[in-house]
């Protein structure tokens, strides 16, 4: 099956400044692809290239099998786009604005706009410039989703939304995915995409550092472990723990009577569990893997070994 979106050696220069240094990725149809990276990493530039709002300096892009430079209006009708910064001015109501966008995009099932607005809690009869940032964002989401496009390109879709609406948005993304739509979205934090994304690409300084499934990220991420045991001297406990593969940063927190140790774990948990089974534990905490930390490490450019 053809990919929904693909980029090969995509570069973009603005004048002498190169902001994309040849990025490659592929998005399978019917999946959710998240791009994360700090501000200025090139997320918005990449998305604008997909919509032919800006033109690549080099490389090749295919969106729904077509080069966006040549796809024209026909291709863009099959895409729903939410820009990173949404500006909606003018003295029109949300309803009228959506009617305008409806006139220049694909056909919309009857009642679709109202049901989307209701889900997001958006009043369509207010003038757009009176809307708060969050409500403008909702209007932008309705606009992107309303014609049920084959591909959704959403730049920081949850920015400005309160947590309840974010949940609703995640539900909308999942439904779109089940309907077979492909979703390409971006964020500067992983937590916003990890709930919905199948695959995550991490972008930094115009380069893709890694493309990984959320599962893969989780496996590679660091967990914190802390346990308390007794009947064993602290140095022996430290030696046992340090022998487990993937363990690092061992610290002794307490050693009078009972021994409390903390450490980090990268990779599989089975060897650790086996080792812990040989101890008399009074307390054990094994944290959720901290994906955010793993990603931040990548942002800051520390080498990710064994990848």
């Amino acid at each position, binding site marked *: 099956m053809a990919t929904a979106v693909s980029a090969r050696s995509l570069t973009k220069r*603005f004048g002498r400044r190169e902001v994309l240094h040849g990025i490659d990725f592929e998005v399978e149809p019917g999946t959710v692809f998240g791009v994360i990276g700090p501000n200025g990493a090139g997320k918005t530039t990449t998305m*604008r290239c997909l*919509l*032919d*709002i*800006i*033109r690549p300096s080099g490389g090749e892009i295919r969106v729904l099998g077509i080069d966006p430079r040549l796809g*024209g*209006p*026909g291709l*863009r*009708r099959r*895409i729903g*786009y939410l*820009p990173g*910064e*949404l*500006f*909606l*001015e*003018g*003295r*029109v109501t949300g309803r009228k604005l959506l009617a*305008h*966008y409806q*006139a*220049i*995009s*694909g056909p919309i099932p009857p009642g679709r706009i109202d049901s989307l607005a209701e889900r997001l809690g958006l009043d369509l009869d207010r003038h757009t410039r009176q809307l708060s940032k969050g409500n403008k964002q909702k209007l*932008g989401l309705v*606009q992107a989703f309303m014609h049920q496009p084959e591909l959704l390109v959403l730049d920081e879709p949850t920015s400005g939304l309160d947590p309840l609406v974010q949940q609703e948005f995640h539900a909308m993304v999942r439904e779109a995915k089940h309907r077979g739509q492909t979703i390409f979205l971006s964020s500067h934090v992983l937590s916003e995409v990890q709930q919905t994304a199948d695959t995550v690409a991490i972008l930094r300084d115009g380069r893709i550092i890694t493309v990984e499934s959320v599962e893969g990220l989780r496996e590679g991420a660091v967990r914190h472990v802390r346990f308390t045991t007794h009947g064993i001297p602290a140095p022996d406990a430290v030696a046992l723990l340090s022998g487990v593969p993937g363990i690092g940063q061992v610290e002794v927190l307490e050693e009078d009577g009972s021994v409390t140790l903390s450490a980090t774990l990268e990779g599989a948990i089975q060897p650790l569990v086996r080792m812990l089974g040989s101890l008399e534990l009074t307390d054990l905490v094994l944290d959720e893997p901290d994906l955010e930390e793993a990603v931040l490490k990548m942002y800051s450019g520390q080498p990710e070994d064994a990848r």
Partner: protein
Amino acid sequence: MTTLPLFRRAFLDTWRSTLGWAAGLAAACFLYLPLYPSLGGSAEMQDMVNALPPEMTKALNYDQIATGPGYAQATLYGLLGFMLMTIASVAWGAAAVGGDEESGQLELTLAHGVTRGQVVLERALALFLRVVLLAALVCALVWLLNGPAQLDIKLDNLLGATVLFAGLALLSGTAALCVGTVTGRRTYGLAAGATVAVLGYVFNAVGRQSKEVEWLLELSPYHWAYGNSPVANGADWAAAAWLWGISAALVAVAAVALERRDVGA
């Protein structure tokens, strides 16, 4: 599918502004024209105009205000009406694409099922239509006041002058649209439109002063349009063709320019 969706939005969403300019132009008609019998046509007024420095009379085109058509030409078409129409047209032209890009809204429009050429052409069409509507309104009001104000303007001269009146405003407006589109900045568009209008007016005023600087008149769109006082003497149709033709060419340049560049970058 709606036909010309971008044109409709550009035209209908600015109806307040269109109405405002229409009110301003109507006020200009009702203020100036009924005064003709007591001002322009009177002997005292002619004496006063004769007493003015001749350079000033020429600059303001007041050398012709002793007749009804000349009065309408100099005061309404040549001065206040020209100003109002130009400002309206330049403001709309600069906002059409450059302003829309600067405010960040063009990006979303272009992400939909439209071509860039279509965006420029439909919005230019909205500009043309609004300017034509305003010119038609002025034409109708002048015709309405023609009898009561004893202006004695001939209908075909009035229609010809209306075509030039609209063409002159469109030239500045499309210059604003073109530069705004090429640069993506509303301010540059405004500056370009204002420059065309002001230089045109100044070149006319200065060029009329003496033989040595007469060549300036050739560079003045204002003089192309009004050099022979169309309200009094009928339109110079070649001038009208130039004004409308250059305006259309500026729109075409804008359409091609937008097609070729990054937006919002």
